[in-house]
C-alpha cells in the first residue's frame, strides 16, 4: 500500500522536479522566459472561477495524483494588481486555496503520510508556505486537543518541510505566473529571513497549542532533533517542554532530553536538571516500550565527566535498584551503563571496592528522597550486583560479575537488544554435539566436494568483510550438552515444589 504511494509520488516528484528545473532556470537567468507573454497581462486578466475553501479541501481529499492538483492550480489566477497601490497582491482564489488547504489539514480524516509527503511537495514551497503560515497558525491556536487527526496531519505536514538553512525549496508560483510579490527586490533580499521566521512562527504555534499526549511523544523527539537548533531563540521551546514534563515519566524523560540539548548546545540554564532526571528514573521506566530511547537519553545525560561524584553515585545506586526489577532486555545495557559510569568517574569506585569495608546496620542509601545531596549513595555499595549474579540469564550473570574484578580502563558500549532479538540469539545457539557432528560428516561424505569447498570458503570471506577490528577473533564453537530429566515428569497441574503450609490453591 505504502509502497504504491511512494512509487507514485516518486513519479510525481520527477515530473515536478522537471517542471521546477525549467522554472528554476528561468529564475536563475532572471530573464523573461516567455517573452511573448506580457507579464502584466497575467495580472490584469480577469480572475477565473475558483473553488471555495471547503470545496478545495474536498477536492484535495478526493484527488488521487498531485498532477490533478497542479492542473487545477494552473487554471487559477493567483495574483492581481491592487487597484490602489499597484502592488502585486494575492487574489481571492489564492486565499481560498490556502484556507482550503488548511481546512484539508485540519479535517477529521487522518491523511496517510505518503500522501502528505506528496502534497508537501506542492504546498511546502517557501512562497506558498508564506501564505499558508498565518492561516495555519490561526488554525493551530484554535485547534482543540481532542482532534488528533488534525494534529497529526499538521505535524506530519510540518515535518516534511525543510528548514531553509538545510534546503531552500523551489518557488511555487514560478510555475504558474511570472510576476509575484516574491519577485520584488526587498522580498528577495531578505528571503532567508522571512522564510525562517515563517518556520519559527508555525512551530511556536504548534508548541503552544493544545497538544495531546500521544502527539507530544512524537513531537518532543522531533523538535529536539530537528527544530530546536533551527529556531532563532531556542529557549522559547523550554516552555513547551516544561508543559509536557509532568504528563508522564516518559514525557518527562523526553523533555529532559530536549532540555539537556538546550543546556549543552544553547547555554540554557536549568539548575536542578539532574534532580529531575533522578526523580524520573525508576524501574517502571524500563518496562516501557520506549526503553531503548530512554536508555540512550540516560546515557547521554550522564556522559559528561564533570558531573559531581555524589550525583553519579546516586545514579549508580538508582540504576542498580532499577535493575532488580528490570526486564531482561534492559538488564545488559544498564549494567553496561553502570560499568561505564564507574570507569568515567573513578571516584565512584568506592561503591564497588573499599579498602576498609565497614559493617553497616542497613543500606545507607535512601531511595525515597529526590534530593541528590541526601541520598547518601556514596556511603553505600552496589550489593545489587551480587543479586544479579544469580540472574536467570547467563549473559546477565556474566556481566554482573564485573564488580568482582578490577575495572577495565576503557568504556565499552552495550548495544540494546530487544527481547525478540535476545530470544532469537538464544534459539540460534548451537546445542548438542554428537548428532550434529555426525550429520556434518555424513554430509561431507555425501555432498559434492566442490560445493563443500565453496561453502567452506564463503564464510571466511564474509568474516573478512564484516569483521574489522572488533570482530570476534574466533567463532564461538561450544558444544552444549542437552540435558534431559531422568525422573518421570509429574502431571501438568501438579506442583513441583511442595510448600507444606500452603493449602490447595489451584484446581481444575
Amino acid at each position, binding site marked *: 500500500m505504502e509502497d504504491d504511494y511512494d512509487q507514485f509520488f516518486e513519479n510525481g516528484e520527477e515530473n515536478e522536479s522537471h517542471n521546477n528545473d525549467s522554472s528554476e532556470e528561468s529564475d536563475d537567468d532572471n530573464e523573461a522566459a516567455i517573452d511573448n507573454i506580457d507579464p502584466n497581462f497575467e495580472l490584469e486578466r480577469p480572475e477565473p472561477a475558483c473553488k471555495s475553501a471547503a470545496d478545495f479541501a474536498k477536492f484535495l481529499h478526493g484527488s488521487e495524483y498531485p498532477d490533478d492538483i497542479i492542473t487545477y492550480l494552473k487554471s487559477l489566477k493567483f495574483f492581481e494588481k491592487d487597484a490602489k497601490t499597484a502592488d502585486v497582491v494575492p487574489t481571492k482564489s489564492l486565499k481560498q486555496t490556502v484556507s482550503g488547504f488548511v481546512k484539508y489539514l485540519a479535517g477529521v480524516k487522518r491523511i496517510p503520510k505518503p500522501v502528505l509527503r506528496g502534497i508537501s511537495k506542492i504546498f511546502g514551497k517557501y512562497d506558498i508556505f508564506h501564505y499558508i503560515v498565518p492561516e495555519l497558525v490561526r488554525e493551530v491556536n484554535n485547534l482543540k486537543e481532542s482532534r488528533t487527526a488534525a494534529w497529526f496531519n499538521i505535524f506530519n505536514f510540518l515535518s516534511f518541510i525543510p528548514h531553509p538553512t538545510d534546503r531552500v525549496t523551489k518557488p511555487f508560483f514560478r510555475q504558474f505566473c511570472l510576476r509575484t510579490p516574491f519577485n520584488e527586490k526587498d522580498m528577495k533580499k531578505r528571503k532567508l529571513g522571512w522564510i525562517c521566521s515563517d518556520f519559527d512562527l508555525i512551530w511556536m504555534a504548534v508548541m503552544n497549542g493544545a497538544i495531546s499526549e500521544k502527539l507530544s511523544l512524537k513531537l518532543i523527539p522531533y523538535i529536539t532533533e530537528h527544530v530546536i537548533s533551527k529556531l532563532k531563540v531556542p529557549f522559547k521551546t523550554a516552555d513547551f517542554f516544561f508543559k509536557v514534563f509532568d504528563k508522564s515519566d516518559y514525557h518527562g524523560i523526553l523533555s529532559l532530553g530536549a532540555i539537556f540539548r538546550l543546556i549543552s548546545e544553547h547555554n540554557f540554564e536549568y539548575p536542578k536538571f539532574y534532580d529531575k532526571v533522578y526523580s524520573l528514573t525508576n524501574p*517502571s521506566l524500563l518496562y516501557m516500550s520506549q526503553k531503548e530511547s530512554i536508555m540512550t537519553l540516560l546515557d547521554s545525560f550522564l556522559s559528561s565527566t564533570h558531573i559531581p561524584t555524589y550525583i553519579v553515585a546516586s545514579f549508580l545506586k538508582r540504576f542498580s535498584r532499577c535493575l532488580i526489577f528490570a*526486564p531482561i532486555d534492559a*538488564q545488559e545495557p544498564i549494567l553496561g551503563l553502570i560499568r561505564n559510569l564507574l570507569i568515567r568517574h573513578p571516584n565512584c569506585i568506592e561503591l564497588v571496592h573499599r579498602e576498609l569495608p565497614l*559493617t553497616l546496620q542497613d543500606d545507607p542509601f535512601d531511595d525515597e528522597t529526590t534530593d541528590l545531596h541526601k541520598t547518601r549513595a556514596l556511603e553505600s555499595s552496589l*550489593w545489587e550486583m551480587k543479586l544479579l549474579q544469580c540472574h536467570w540469564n547467563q549473559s546477565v550473570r556474566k556481566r554482573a560479575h564485573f564488580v568482582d574484578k578490577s575495572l577495565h580502563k576503557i568504556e565499552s558500549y552495550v548495544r540494546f537488544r530487544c527481547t525478540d532479538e535476545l*530470544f532469537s540469539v538464544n534459539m540460534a545457539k548451537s546445542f548438542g554435539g554428537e548428532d550434529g557432528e555426525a550429520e556434518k560428516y555424513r554430509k561431507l561424505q555425501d555432498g559434492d566436494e566442490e560445493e563443500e569447498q565453496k561453502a567452506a570458503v564463503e564464510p571466511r570471506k564474509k568474516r573478512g568483510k564484516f569483521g574489522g577490528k572488533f570482530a570476534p577473533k574466533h567463532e564461538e564453537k561450544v558444544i552444549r550438552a*542437552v540435558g534431559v530429566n531422568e525422573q518421570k*515428569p509429574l*502431571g501438568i497441574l501438579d506442583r513441583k515444589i511442595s*510448600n507444606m503450609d500452603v493449602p490447595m490453591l489451584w484446581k481444575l
Partner: protein
Amino acid sequence: MGITKKKNTQKQKKINPFELKFNKSKHDILGRKKGAQVGAPTASRKRAHEQREKTLGVEYERKNKISKIIDKRLGEKDGKTEEEKGALRFTEERVKNYKRASKFNLTDDFGDIEEEDVLTHKGKALSDIEKYDKSMVSDSDDDEDPGNLGSHMVKVAHFGGGEKSTEEFVKEKISRESMISNLIAKTKLIRHEKQQAKDELELLTDSLDAKYTQLLGKVKNSFRPAGRQPLEKDDYDKLTYTLKVEADARATPADRKLSEEEMAAKERERLETLEAARISKSNALLNAHMSADADVDVDAGSKADARKLKLKNSRFEVRFDDDGAMVDEGKVEKLSVRKVAQDEDVDEDDGDFEDEDEEEEEDLDDLMEEENEDEDEEEQESDEEEEEVQEKEKSKPKKSLSKDVPFVFEMPKNYQKFCTLLEKYPKDMEVVLERLVKCHHPSLKEGNKKRLNKLFLMCLRWFDDMAKEELTEQSVKEMDVAQATMHVLLKFDIQYGVRCVRALIRQHWKNRQDKEKSSPASFALISAVRLVSGLFPVSDNWHPVVVPTFFLATEVLCAAKCPNLTALAKQLALATALVEYVGESKRYVPELIAFTRSALLLAVSEKPNKFLTNGFPISKPFSEMLCINKKITTKLEPISLKSIFSSCQADDDTLRPAVLRSLISLVQQLRVLYTSHQETYNIVFQPFLRILEAINKEHLTKELREEVEILTASMKAECDAKKRLIHLSLVKTEKSMLKMLEPRFEWDFDPERPHHGPKDEKKKLTKNLKNEMRGAIKELRKDTAFLARKQLTNVKVTDRARVAATKRVMGGLMQQQGEWNKEKRTNEVEKKKAKK
C-alpha cells in the same frame, strides 16, 4: 678381596675364557666406581635367550591358537602293546569306580595329586579317630553290618578267586566247610571280647558320671549359669545368620543383565506372544459355538503362533480389525502389495525428514505441515484401506474396549490416524502409547528411530491441541499421558525432541509477538512452560529449550495487561509455574519480583509505592481489584482453572480472596527462595513488607488473615536479621614475591659428595625414568629380534622340510626315469637284436 677373587675365578673357571670380555679402563679416576671389569656376553645372551624362550617364546607359539587337544588316551603315546593298554584301562576304570563308591571318604585323594591333604585332629590323622569312632558306634548292630568283617577275612572269603598262595590253595582244597566254621567261631570270639570291653567301659563311665554329679552338687553355686542362654538377637546377628543361610542364594547368579537391544527385542516378543494369545482367545470365542472344547484355545494359540512365525518370515504385517479378528488371507495379500508401496513411501518421507532436520528455524506448524504433506500422498493410497477399516468400525460397534487392547500396534501414519487410534482406546491411552513405543524400539528395525520421532511430534501436537481445547479432567489426563510418553521418547533422540519443543516455544513466541502481545497467558502457554520443566532440567546453566522458555514466560509476565481478575489469575498461574523453574537453582527473576509486587499493590488502596510493570490498571476501581472490602462468608476455595480459562467470566467476589491467597503464597515462596541473598534481601523485600502491612485485613477470612500475618511476620523477622551489611571490596589477589637470590648454606658440606639441591629428588627420579625407559626400549628391541629369529627358524625348518621332500620326490622321479630309460634302451637293443 683376595678370597672373593679366588672364588670368582673358581666359579668362572667353568666358562670358556675365550667367551669372556674384559673392560679396559684407560684412566683410573679416584672416587669413581668402576663398572664390572669382566663380563661374559655369550653366557648372558644365552641366559636371556632362554628366558625369552620360556616367556615370549611360549606366548609366540600359542599365538592364534585358541585351544589345544590333549590326548588322554591311555598308553597311546608310549607305544605299548594292546594288552598293556587294556590293563591300564582296566586299572583306571577300577580306580574311578572305587572313587565313586567312597564319595564321602574325606581322606580320599583326588586324582593324581601327590601331596594329599590329610585331615588331622590334634596332630593325629582323622582316619585313626574315625576308626575308633566307628567301632564304638557300630558294634551294637554288628550282625547286620557286612562291612565290619576283618580285612583279611574279606579278602579271603569274598574274593576267593585270583592269585592265592599255594598253602591257602591247598587248605581250601582240604576242607572248605571246616574252614568256614572256623572263621565263624573266630569272629564270634572277637565279638564277644568286644562286647565285654564295651560293657566295662559303660560301667566305668557310669561310675564316673555318678562321681561327677556328686562333685557338681557341691560346687554348683560357684559356677556361672550353665547351658545355653537365650541370646537376644541384634541386627548384626541377624545379618550374620542371613549371610550364613542365604549366602548361596545370593551367590547364585541371577539372569544376566540384558543389553538394551535384547531388552527391547524381548519386550516386543512378549507383546507379540500376548497379542497372539489374545487373538487366539478371541478366535476361540468365535469358534465357541462350533466346538465347546477347552483345547480349542490351545489349538488357536498354536495357530496364532504359527501365524506369528509366518509373519516373521514374510515381513508383511497382519492386520486386525478392531475386534482383534484377523483380516482374512486374501485381503492380507492385497494389503501386502500396498504395504510395499507404502514402505517405499516411508523411505521417501524419511528423506524429507532429513531435509527437515537441516532447517533450524521452523515452527511446530511448519513441522506438522511438512509431515502432513508427506502424508497426503500416502493417504491417497491408504484411503481405501482406511475406508475398509472404517466400515468395519461402523459395522461392529465398539464393545468391551478396555479389555481388548492389542499388544502390537503399527505406527500411525499421520496425526489424524494417531488421534483415531487414541480415541479407540480412551481408557488405555498410556498402555497404547507404551506398547507403541515398545514395538518400535530403534534396535528392532531400521527406520524405527524416525518413526519414534514422528510419534514424538504427534504427541507434542496432541499435547498442544489438548491444551488449547476446553479444560476438562480428561484433557488434563491426556496431557499427562502425552507428557509421559514424550519423556520416554526423548531418550531415543534427544536432539529431535529438543527441536520439536523449541518449535513449540517459538510458535508461542511468535504468537505473542504478533497478535496477543498484551493478552494474559493462555493455558496452552502455561502448560507448555510446565511441559518444558517436566522434560528438561530447568537449573542448567544454559539449555536450548529452557532458556527460550524463560524468555517466553518473562516476556508474557512483563508485557501482558491485567485489566481484570481472571487475567490476573492467569498471570498468577504462569508466575507459579515460573517459580518452579528457579526452585532448585534459586536464580533471580526480576520480572517475577516486579510482577508480584505490582500485583500485590492491587490489594492495597493507599499505595505506598508505584506500579513497577506497566500492565496494571492505574485508575481507581480496577487498581483496587484485590482489595477485599466486604466480609466474605463463603469458604475459601482453590482457584478453578476451568473457570479462569473458559470464556465466561467468573464471579469476582469469590475469585478475589482465592487470587489474593495464591498471590500471598507466591510471595511466601519467593521469600523462602531468596533468603540466601544476604545483602539484597532487604532491598527486594522491604517494599513487599510495606505493601503487606498496608493491606486492609479487616474483612479477610480467618485463614487468609492468618496467612498474611504469618507472611508479614516472617518477612519482617528475616529483614531484621539481614540488616547488617558489609561494604563491597575486591578480593585482593596476592602478588607472588620475586625470587630472592640469597645464598643457600649447606651445613653438612662434603666436597666428595654431590651437592644436595632442592631439585635433587626430581633429578634422581627423572634419571631413573630415563634409564628405565632406555632399558625398556632395549628390551623391546631385543624381543623383536628374538621374535624375528624365531620366525626365521620356523621358516627355515619348513623350507628344509620342503627341500627334503622335493629332493625325495625328485630322486624318486629320477630313479623312475633312469629305470624307464634303461628299459627303453634294453628294448631297443632287443629290437635291434630281433631285427638282426
